[in-house]
């Protein structure tokens, strides 16, 4: 019963979020700020994780393909497909659910418990739209860029591993990266990330917007935001993969 109540409340919040903005210029300014807060500030973590994951996938794949009957370039193919199909979309989304989701829930939750949202409402401002819509737009615009960045950096991480160790010739790796490349993989990945961005921002905002009480409850809403958005990202991954790849 509580699930249906929360689901209903979530969709009511979405109708408030997508109401006509009071002033477009203010929303535009907020969106630019959010691009910096939830997009540019996530660059570092995405780069660091992607480079290491690219390197590790290269080493692991090479270890598993140590068979003279298998061509060496298959390592590059596997690294590329792993990154493009799953890591740079879903895994990066899960990382962002942790970083961005908790930040959004605690920011909006703190605004709720310190009556800043009430202050906006009293002014006649649609607080849900003013606070959440710019975050949704910023995330849906910027998460795909982070995903593309993760693909490049991950592949580069694998290439660095080839150069710094002697497990694989860089030329074999590069050949594998280019071998039977389907550009559709990128559009598939980017499509998924756009959906993930929506899920992460709206679920986290919902948790923060309806936070009640004090610091403890804001902390709880932040944890819930990460857990629920991660589960929904995985569910969306399953559904979108079935829809797009079959």
């Amino acid at each position, binding site marked *: 019963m509580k699930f249906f109540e929360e689901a209903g409340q979530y969709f009511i919040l979405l109708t408030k979020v997508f109401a006509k903005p009071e002033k477009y210029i203010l929303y535009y300014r907020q969106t630019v700020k959010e691009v910096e807060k939830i997009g540019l500030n996530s660059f570092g973590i995405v780069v660091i994780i992607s480079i290491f994951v690219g390197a590790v996938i290269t080493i692991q794949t090479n270890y598993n393909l140590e068979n003279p009957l298998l061509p060496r370039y298959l390592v590059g193919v596997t690294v590329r497909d792993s990154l493009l199909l799953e890591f740079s979309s879903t895994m990066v989304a899960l990382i962002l659910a942790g970083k961005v989701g908790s930040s959004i829930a605690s920011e909006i939750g703190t605004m709720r418990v310190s009556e800043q949202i*009430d202050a906006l409402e009293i*002014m*006649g*401002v649609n607080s849900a739209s003013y606070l959440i819509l710019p975050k949704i737009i910023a995330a849906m615009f910027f998460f795909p860029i982070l995903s593309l960045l993760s693909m490049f950096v991950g592949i580069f991480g694998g290439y660095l591993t080839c150069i710094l160790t002697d497990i694989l010739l860089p030329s074999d790796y590069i050949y594998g990266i280019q071998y039977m490349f389907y550009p559709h993989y990128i559009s598939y990945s980017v499509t998924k990330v756009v959906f993930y961005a929506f899920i992460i921002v709206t679920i986290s905002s919902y948790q923060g917007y309806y936070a009640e009480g004090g610091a403890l409850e804001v902390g709880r809403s932040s944890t819930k935001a990460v857990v629920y958005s991660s589960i929904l990202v995985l569910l969306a991954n399953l559904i979108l993969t079935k829809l797009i790849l079959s």
Partner: protein
Amino acid sequence: MIEVKHLTKKFEDKTVLDDVSITFEQGKTNLIIGQSGSGKTVLLKSIVGLHTVDQGEIWYDDRQYNSLNFKQKKEIRKEIGMLFQGAALFDSSTVEENVMLPLDMFTEMSYKEKLSRVNFCLERVNLTEVNSLFPSEISGGMKKRVAIARAIALNPKYLFCDEPNSGLDPQTGIVIDNLIKNITEEFNITTIINTHDMNSVIEIGDKVVFIYEGKKIWEGSNQEIMKTECKELNEFVFATNLAKKLRENP
């Protein structure tokens, strides 16, 4: 003028406001007093529409607020200024941006005009050279003054203050009280203040309403409150030793 008629508000089975009727007059500081948990904040938040009421009517001059749709309520809200207990300034915005937000949102002024209005409001609350500071960089009293400046930015007809002195030292509390009183008289605003600070009652209470266990049991002026026969009100007003001594030796 704001009129509340037979207001009842329940949270699940608990009745927090029980058949409350009050008239708040224009150009006067109307004080709602009562113990913690008596229903003062719920009453204030019900009047501004942050809580929906179960029964009763709320009138802003000739407009019945609680029967209006969302769009119509929004129009009235543009005429409302509110000072929250914790000031409720936006942490990520500077003082100037905080005061400018309502102007940005609801006026077509140029930046120069908005800045001039912001500076006027800040000067009105005796604040200068704080435009570029963030709320975390100013004191509690200054935060309240910025919140008042933000509340009056759009020339409100109605001003609501939820415990404006809480967390402030007595001297700063008096400054805030006087500021609210002066602004109310200067701009002929209907001001409603929620407080349990007896100094505010004595100093600025043009009209005082006492809420006890969700019911209005007394109303009068700050002069009448000292001579009242109402037992619950006397227990509240003369709760401190200092007040008791003053009553014994006026």
